[in-house]
């Protein structure tokens, strides 16, 4: 059993470990029964020390996880809302794009007869839902391949990118033009933020990553500046 992982389990108990390492430990515990057993024992020591241990052999985890695995999907729909871009969901996205494109074309005459004042007030309508190609294009700046994304509001999206050659993830928050500052500042509390453009449209981008240092994020953000 690796001494390093044992050490990290101790850090996990005390909340002294990074999110990236937490994910690694979770995966390691799942694949290595010895680590899982050590984690169980370490928590039993703690419970015993605090006088909170009733049965040293108690382990409800198998029953609990079996119940959770048997939950109907309707009861866990609120978890994992992010779409995965696998083969099936790609087909699903294609159908959605066709439908949205179809309704967009139908709505063009309505947009044309709007008065100039209406056009200003309806600026968020310029936001193109499911603008996957823009996200792919943004990712190409730093060789990130689009993993998944979601629409977070009428004028913002979030996307995850895989960096080439490893499993490092970069999260990108995209805010479209004319969004009030308070709206995008409210959702940004870490990472690197950059103001750039896509064609004539101003964009605000926020880059974060659980496993990349800020310096690397700054390098990535520079690629947007250079493009601008």
């Amino acid at each position, binding site marked *: 059993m690796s001494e390093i992982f044992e050490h990290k389990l101790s850090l996990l108990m005390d909340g002294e470990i990074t999110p990236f390492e937490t994910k690694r430990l979770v995966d390691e515990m799942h694949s290595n029964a010895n680590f899982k057993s050590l984690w169980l024992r370490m928590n039993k020591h703690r419970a015993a020390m605090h006088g909170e241990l009733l049965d040293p052999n108690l382990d*409800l985890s198998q029953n*609990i996880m079996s119940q959770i695995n048997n939950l109907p999907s309707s009861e866990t729909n609120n978890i994992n809302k992010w779409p995965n871009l696998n083969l099936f969901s790609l087909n699903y996205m294609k159908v959605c794009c066709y439908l949205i494109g179809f309704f967009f074309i139908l709505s063009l005459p309505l947009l044309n007869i709007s008065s100039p004042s209406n056009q200003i007030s309806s600026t968020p309508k310029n936001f193109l839902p499911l603008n996957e190609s823009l996200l792919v294009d943004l990712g190409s700046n730093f060789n990130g391949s689009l993993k998944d994304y979601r629409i977070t509001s009428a004028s913002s999206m979030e996307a995850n990118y895989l960096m080439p050659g490893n499993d490092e993830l970069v999260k990108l928050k995209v805010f479209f033009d004319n969004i009030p500052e308070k709206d995008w500042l409210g959702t940004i509390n870490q990472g690197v933020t950059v103001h750039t453009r896509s064609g004539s449209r101003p964009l605000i981008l926020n880059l974060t990553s659980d496993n990349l240092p800020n310096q690397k994020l700054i390098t990535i953000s520079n690629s947007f500046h250079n493009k601008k």
Partner: protein
Amino acid sequence: MNSEKSLINLVKKGDKKAYNVLVLQYQDRLVYSVFKFLKDFELSQDIAQEAFVKAFKNIDKFRGDSSFYTWIYRIAINTAKNSLSSKARSSEVYDDDLMDLKLSESAITVDNPENILEADQLRTLMMDAIQNLPDDIRTTLSLREFDGLSYEEIADVQNCPIGTVRSRIHKGREILDKTFSKYNLSNLETNLL
């Protein structure tokens, strides 16, 4: 750094393995808390189990204002109360007074299985093991476990690098694990004889 928050975020993204880590971490403490309320060991296990499943189903509602344990503790205690009130209702004479009576009765009739005695022995053994730790390790581990100090605070108090704090705590737990494993092994042998 907040590892618990990271675990919760993983669960919210659908990672059940991360939830299993939380279950392993908190199950003993939760069963103990419910047991203090119900004084019924078997029922306490059922309630804790139900609470963990409910918490998983509602994890998107957990905003992180409190710790995960505080949140699941509330779920478990509410589940315990509901369980008692539905028992009272099934006897068709449910009212608030009866509910209070049931709670006080359950508090008196303590179901104390052999395992609980075994846990008492284990606690004494662990406390002895802590007392026998080398001074620096014992002090560091005690500051963490009993005073709830962060690694940074312990490093300040002991005037040593944070890496030393990490190593001492890990070393202490390693020694305690040996004691725990020896106890479990000898207990297993006794049960087999």
